[in-house]
């Protein structure tokens, strides 16, 4: 916010335009020619609109200065330098699930693990599918996320090369989660990756997908991810995003959900890492009777900045949406929750609710929370509420009066505040993994042993 106007700094933009020129020739040779018009349209749009500034209402609380003044290099394949052992800490214990590993944006089959998936279920590389079976992608890929309006989506689409593709046929239930690990190995120059994920679920199917962003080593980098989730009628989809990149990482990721009739989408976001993170979640309840639960937990300290932007679109009648976001902010960190609910004209009987609760642990931590309701139907129920507070000293005294040391009492209350969000996660190995990450984050979280 304190940065001056950044519109004029075009180092990042110029770098991307140059990279696009350099890469364009190669792309048309490797069988992905059909994507070229889409990529060109996207880069042209980006050149046109540029990156947003704090004068754009949707970016009011987040200065992109550190990003727009960096000339990012395209990330180069580095899978060979990655030892499988170094990825072990990111695996979910007790879950021999399919894990698709991408290093610097490219699929790394040698680091990935597969488990038996039900017949017809696909989980693999988007690049491979682009080459082998583009017909499976054409109806969905880049059809939902609007790169005309969103600079980072335009950027992602312009450089769309690889990422995960998951497809579940009608009526199939995938029991184990599909883990998509996006690894960045930073180099001496700042690199950018643009992972693209496409998940398509058939009518009445069920699947959970975890997108997990990590850095191996230090160095600035940008992860600019876009995920399109096309949810069939009556399909039940769980989506998890874990942001645990390094403190030098910039992370912008967008989840765009397109929901069919009576479908259910649950989105969990846990932000722990990164210097600057912007998380966009944009479900469109396109079919009648759909429901969408958006849960988020962001925990920041030091100088971290975490911006959560929701745009929940009710486009059909009888749909229900719930947003619950919790933030814990320490040090000089800055959190943002911007929750927009749009109820279209025909979306009668909409039931939308939004809650944002924040704990500030230090004098210098800051939170901006902003609800925004745009309602064009007349028979709807929409509520929102936000709270900002400190740890309840009354509760601390209560716990101490029963024998708990003050530090343990504080750790316990912090964990409890966050733990509530973890309890909502249905995939147990993922939940347990995150419980551990949150415990590690909590100051003196080691005291929680035996308390949880």
């Amino acid at each position: 916010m304190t940065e001056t106007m950044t519109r004029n700094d075009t180092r990042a933009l110029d770098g991307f335009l140059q990279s696009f020129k350099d890469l364009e020739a190669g792309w048309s040779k490797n069988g992905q020619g059909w994507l070229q018009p889409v990529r060109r349209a996207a880069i042209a749009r980006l050149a046109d609109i540029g990156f947003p500034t704090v004068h754009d209402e949707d970016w009011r609380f987040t200065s992109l200065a550190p990003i727009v003044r960096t000339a990012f290099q395209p990330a180069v394949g580095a899978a060979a330098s990655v030892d499988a052992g170094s990825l072990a800490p990111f695996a979910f214990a007790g879950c021999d699930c399919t894990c698709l590993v991408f290093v610097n944006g490219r699929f790394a089959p040698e680091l990935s693990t597969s488990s038996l998936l039900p017949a017809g279920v696909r989980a693999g590389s988007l690049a491979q599918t682009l080459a082998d079976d583009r017909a499976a992608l054409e109806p969905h890929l880049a059809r939902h996320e609007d790169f005309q309006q969103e600079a980072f989506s335009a950027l992602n689409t312009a450089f769309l090369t690889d990422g995960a593709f998951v497809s579940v046929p009608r009526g199939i239930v995938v029991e184990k989660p599909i883990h998509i690990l996006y690894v960045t190995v930073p180099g001496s120059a700042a690199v950018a990756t643009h992972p693209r994920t496409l998940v398509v679920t058939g009518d009445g199917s069920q699947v959970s997908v975890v997108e997990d962003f990590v850095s191996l080593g230090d160095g600035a980098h940008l992860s600019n991810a876009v995920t399109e989730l096309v949810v069939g009628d009556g399909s039940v989809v769980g989506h998890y995003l874990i942001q645990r990149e390094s403190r030098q990482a910039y992370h912008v990721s967008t989840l765009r959900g397109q929901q069919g009739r009576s479908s259910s989408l649950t989105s969990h976001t846990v932000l722990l890492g990164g210097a600057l993170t912007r998380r966009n979640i944009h479900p469109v309840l396109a079919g009648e009777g759909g429901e969408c639960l958006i849960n988020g937990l962001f925990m920041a300290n030091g100088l971290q900045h975490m911006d959560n932007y929701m745009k929940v679109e009710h486009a059909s009648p009888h749909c229900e949406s719930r947003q619950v976001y919790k933030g814990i902010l320490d040090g000089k960190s800055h959190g943002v929750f911007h929750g927009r609910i749009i109820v279209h004209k025909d979306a009668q009987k909409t039931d939308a609710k939004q809650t944002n609760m924040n704990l500030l642990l230090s004098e210098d931590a800051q939170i901006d929370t902003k609800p925004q309701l745009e309602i064009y139907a007349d028979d709807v129920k929409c509520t929102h509420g936000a709270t900002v507070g400190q740890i309840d000293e009354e509760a601390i005294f209560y716990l101490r009066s029963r024998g708990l040391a003050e530090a343990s009492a504080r750790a316990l209350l912090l964990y409890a505040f966050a733990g509530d969000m973890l309890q909502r996660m249905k995939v147990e190995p993922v939940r347990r993994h995150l419980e551990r990450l949150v415990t590690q984050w909590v100051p003196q979280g080691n005291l929680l042993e035996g308390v949880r």
Partner: protein
Amino acid sequence: MLEIKNLHAKINGREILKGVDLTVRAGEVHSIMGPNGSGKSTLAQVLAGRESYEVTEGEVLYRGKNLLDMSPEERACEGVFLAFQYPVEIPGVNNTYFLKAAVNAIRKYHGQEELDAMDFLALMRSKMKLLDMDEGLLNRSVNEGFSGGEKKRNEIFHMAVLQPALAILDETDSGLDIDAMKIVANGVNALRGPDRAMLVVTHYQRLLNYIVPDFVHVLVDGRIVRSGGKELALELEEQGYAGIEGEAAQLAKA
């Protein structure tokens, strides 16, 4: 066990306790009665170590040690327990886990080994029975969504599990129906013994039908103005606090 001498305490610059003297020996049950605003709850909170109260004068000895020098958790570990008038709701903290942490913190303080899950469960089960607790309450967040009666019962349950030497009950009877009160009183009476003492703070005499005190003290305007046996409680029940408040006012003038 407990010796309170000329205790003065204030909050936000206002003096609430104006020289309380009280001696409680092991094995005794004392009741502190008094009108609203007389300082009963302040006394209970000061004894438990509430930091928002400032002790300006006097001393409190607990088993010969200076109680006021101890942190709230040290007091708990030394065997002081306060059953809160308004038990705090703690969303996300499981009642059972919390109690286990408390039991083990106290055991650790005394150099004892931590209880394992099985022993702890056995302890919980026996105390649950004593208080006719619904097992469901154990797996819920501490006090969250509990009714008034459930919260009070949970306090006594905590007390039964932690087995304190000095239990301070702050208006544990308020908001309880007669059945709940009997259950709570059972729990309290089960803890009575020659090595323990209790301070029962209450506005009404009702609870004292079930927890029969050895001594009754009347606190008015921050001082104990009368002390007596259990019959004093009955007298107050009949005559109300008005007479005693009048005496106290006279006393203050004189």
